[in-house]
């Protein structure tokens, strides 16, 4: 176990290639910290560089971090700051975004941990060069009148009760059918979209809690596109959206290539 000293910890945002001629944009890091670069290997040759900032271990040490991560406001702020730095750096060239909360006790310790991974990092960098991640989420299209017809207002009580139960059953079955149809459409859409890109990933559909949407999500895809194919991809999403009434597609991005940093990408 590392002993915590007076020297600050290091928060890592991303790995970049110093060969891209990096001049860091003016962007604040987590807790407003100044963002800087820290070369991984030998400083003499242009090489892989970490984008980092100091992180007070009183706030970003193990126990403190664990407690803070339970605080949604804190988490939201830090996630946005972390993402903000990565997004700003992504404007400059190829970037390997780090997962949130990659923290080292010192710069030396970070260098020791990352230097050994250089070949893998370089390979990942090569795959991501001149490419951008886009997201496509698909939702079940809202049926126009899922409850079916109407029941006369002045029906006898028993008749109205039966009608209510029937409507409820019909609505449920209509909902299941919409979901199934949208799900089939999503599979076809993903296959079609994957044809346009260098790599694709299917993520689990987000829960309504996370998506903030009432409609069920049936597709949560990530697509790694050559930069010059982004327009073509956007058009493909729009065309699929028009052609399949069961499914509502939404394009998000451009994203730093979070979904394509793994070795199997």
């Amino acid at each position, binding site marked *: 176990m590392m002993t915590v000293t007076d020297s600050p910890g290091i928060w890592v945002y991303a790995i970049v290639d110093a060969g891209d001629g990096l001049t860091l944009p003016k962007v604040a890091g987590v807790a407003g910290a100044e963002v800087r670069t820290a070369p991984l290997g030998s400083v003499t040759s242009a090489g892989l560089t970490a984008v980092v900032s100091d992180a007070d271990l009183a706030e970003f040490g193990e126990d403190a971090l664990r407690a803070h991560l339970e605080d949604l406001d804190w988490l939201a702020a830090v996630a946005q700051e972390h993402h903000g730095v990565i997004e700003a750096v992504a404007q400059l060239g190829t970037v390997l975004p780090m997962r949130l909360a990659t923290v080292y006790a010192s710069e030396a310790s970070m260098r020791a941990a990352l230097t050994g991974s250089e070949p893998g990092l370089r390979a990942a960098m090569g795959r991501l060069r001149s490419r951008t991640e886009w997201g496509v989420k698909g939702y079940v299209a809202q049926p126009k009148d899922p409850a079916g017809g109407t029941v006369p*207002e002045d029906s006898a009580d028993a008749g109205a*009760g039966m009608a*209510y139960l029937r409507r409820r059953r019909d609505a449920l079955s209509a909902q299941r059918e919409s979901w199934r149809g949208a799900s089939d459409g999503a599979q076809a859409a993903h296959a079609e979209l994957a044809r346009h890109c260098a790599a694709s990933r299917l993520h689990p559909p*987000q829960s309504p809690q996370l998506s903030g949407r009432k409609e069920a999500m049936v597709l949560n895809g990530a697509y790694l596109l050559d930069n010059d194919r982004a327009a073509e991809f956007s058009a493909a999403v729009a065309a699929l959206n028009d052609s399949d009434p069961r499914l509502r597609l939404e394009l998000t991005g451009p994203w730093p290539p979070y979904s394509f940093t793994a070795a199997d990408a």
Partner: protein
Amino acid sequence: MRGNVIQSDSMAAQGYSSGASTGGGSTTNLGDILERVLDKGLVIAGDIKINLLDIELLTIKLRLVIASLDTARQVGIDWWEEDPWLSASATRRAMARAGDGDGELEAENRRLRAKVRELESGQPSKRRDDDRD
């Protein structure tokens, strides 16, 4: 409704490296950011050992629910009740939100539910739902 569904081709044509405007797409929301920074991205063991999965899977989503309740109520999304067609209050709000002539259906639903309650209890209804409006 939330907008910015499909970005224009001219915007999509720009990757980061061809100078897309800073700040990224307007579609970026907190849920998407959390999903990516907590669940994706390069994983290299740090000195500080945190199991994000423990946090991500349960607590955050739960807290997202709680934190968003008020907002969701305002826009009529009752996802914590799972099925809007089974929930009178959710249906009422969803219909009110749709605001496209389904008000009759909403009113009718309310009447029918009141009648079902009435039948189930075997007593005349006080029509509390209607009184509320």
